[in-house]
């Protein structure tokens, strides 16, 4: 099994076999993650620091659990409250942290490229937990694992990604990953929330959701940030829900066995109808959360193995 990366900075750097390696390992961790009282010691003795320069509850909790279930010592640092406010630069923060000799550094930052900049300055393995509008690789991997388990495969599927594509790192990582695995990707959303030049990524772009959902195997909804709702990018919340919210009527256009995904947290009644989100026959939203822990366990395990290789 080969995973020749020091860091997990993005999907862009991964090859399809490496993605499969990671997903296979994650699959094997689902059981461990579910088991009561069982704890692995794979990361025992290693220190994992979660550095979140931007608010996050679920991703941080998921990384924390993943580390603990593998036996790592996990520390959380709330960076908004700390030295950044005192004027310390990102590089200095990185160097300070590096001197504490962590083994795994999980970083979220509001600026695109910031995690990769930080990774250049530290000796440990860095996992990107989301940088600006750039990438969120573990989210794309957990989405992929969820799709693979629900659909039995991760290729030749018609996948509609709907909503605020422009501001979404989740969308970017998913477009890269699902594209590498040879799926048909449709992007659905108002043109004001569609990034320029996106057609060149090998995707189909729809501004009519009904057309975009037609015969889709997977419907992936994105969160619409509150600050984008008021007239800036879309006229109003209610018009958005009318045209781009996932309801039963629009979902009926997708394949009968299409699954519904959402990276959370959801705005019920804005991008998704609550009843669909809760429909256990269609919605895999809770599975996504569960797969998140397994995928992060796998990612940290693989990177930790490479740490050992360097030391040897």
């Amino acid at each position, binding site marked *: 099994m080969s995973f020749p990366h020091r860091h997990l900075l993005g999907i862009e750097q991964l090859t399809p076999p490496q993605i499969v390696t990671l997903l296979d390992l994650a699959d094997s961790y689902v059981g461990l993650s579910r088991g009561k009282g069982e704890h692995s010691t794979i990361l025992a003795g290693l220190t994992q620091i979660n550095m979140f320069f931007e608010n996050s509850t679920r991703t941080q909790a998921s990384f924390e659990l993943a580390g603990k279930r593998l036996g790592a010592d996990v520390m959380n640092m709330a960076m908004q409250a700390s030295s950044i406010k005192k004027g310390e630069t990102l590089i200095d923060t990185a160097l300070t942290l590096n001197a504490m000799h962590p083994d795994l550094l999980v970083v979220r930052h509001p600026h695109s490229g910031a995690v990769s900049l930080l990774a250049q300055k530290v000796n440990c393995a860095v996992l990107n937990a989301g940088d*600006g509008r750039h990438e969120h690789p573990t989210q794309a991997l957990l989405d992929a694992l969820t799709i693979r388990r629900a659909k039995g495969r991760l290729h030749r599927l018609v996948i509609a990604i709907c909503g605020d594509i422009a501001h979404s790192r989740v969308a970017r990582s998913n477009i890269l990953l699902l594209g590498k695995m040879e799926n048909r990707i449709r992007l659905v959303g108002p043109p004001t929330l569609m990034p320029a*030049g996106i057609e060149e990524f090998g995707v189909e772009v729809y501004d009519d959701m009904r057309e975009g959902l037609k015969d889709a195997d997977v419907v992936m909804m994105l969160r619409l940030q509150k600050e984008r709702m008021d007239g800036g990018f879309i006229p109003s919340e209610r018009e958005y829900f009318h045209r781009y919210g996932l309801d039963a009527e629009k979902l009926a256009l997708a394949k009968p066995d299409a699954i519904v995904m959402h990276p959370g947290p959801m705005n019920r009644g804005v991008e998704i109808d609550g009843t669909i989100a809760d429909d256990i026959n269609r919605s895999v939203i809770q599975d996504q959360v569960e797969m998140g822990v397994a995928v992060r366990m796998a990612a940290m395990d693989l990177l930790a193995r490479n740490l050992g290789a360097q030391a040897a």
Partner: protein
Amino acid sequence: MIRIVFANATLIDPEAGPDAGNGARGHLIVSDGKIDAILTSGEAPASDGTVVDCKGKMLAPGLIDIGVKVGEPGERHKESYKSAGLAAAAGGVTTMVTRPDTEPVIDNPETLEFVTRRAQAETPVRVLPMAALTKGRQGREMTEIGFLMDAGAVAFTDCARVVTDTKVFSRALTYARSLGALVIGHPQDPALSAGAVVTSGKFASLRGLPAVSPMAERMGLDRDIAVVEMTGARYHADQITTARALPALERAKANGFDVTAGISVHHLTLNEFDIADYRTFFKLTPPLRSEDDRVAMIEAVGSGLIDIVCSMHSPQDEESKRLPFEEAASGAVGLETLLPAALRLYHGGHLTLAQLFRALSLKPAQRLGLPGGRLGKGAPADLVLFDPNIPFVMDRYTLKSKSLNTPFDEQRMEGRVLGTWVGGKEVYRTS
């Protein structure tokens, strides 16, 4: 009378037309700091003074670089007049036209006199200061354009900050017109480009960076040209970098407006993909453009539609650049790389040397009403001797600038300055 003979030179005179000036072998005689004679046949005349044997290398009018930022006052740690002067001399730049976007802003005669004094004391090359168009570059009140001209300001600009209030802008241009002052604008729609750090398109979307449509430049230029039409002012666009802006520029010139345009050499030799993995040395204002735009801009320089090529020298220290891309400071140093970078266009077969020096020396001189920029009799002996064929790998630690933020670091370049003279005085010479 001090006489210098530049013997056996290949003369590059942009004034002599695209063919004639391109490569005639000859000798150039300088008397009292001015070009006295050019001999294109026979032996070099004997001289009781200095003889510079050019050994067949290229001798051209020194570069006149409009838009150089020196960190005085306020940011001397990034670039002083001394370091900028040394960098200019090493780059064959014989005249630096300096920007007023300093701390504090050069917006009154006293500050202008201070920088003029500093420049005279510290730099071996000529320095011509520009002043702000509005006080504090705030876009609200015009500066004392008359007093500033008396103090030596050669042009008026708020640099990369657009005067958004069109009433303020049109009044400033109306007033400038009455004095014959040159106004330099930064064509950019300020609302559309707010917060943007790259040009919108595939690259920006891939990297997830805030982006501005290339159309914002055209919108800015359209507005500025309309104000020029309204006021009759003399106007120069600091940088035109997108193909979409060219028709408006062409129309303005055809209509007889007193409009010219420039571009930085970076926008002629680099494109947005050079930013690659968030390399902040490639963060410029305006941002680097698409390859299609770059190619269109080279053509526009070739045709003369874009008049002037500059370095837009913007020194930034490591601390300002070692930040996430969105937070990092914008700009690149360019005094020492202006000529070798421009020579890429010559080596690539895109532009002749005469075309290059028209944009680097002749047109800037003409636009500012200077006697130089050419190799004619009576012109000041501001000269650069260079070999366009010396290859080297750029090492930023060899730069004379205090700031080392060059996008050409570790890149292969071709062409080196062998010597620089200002008013007949040697200010730089390689051993």
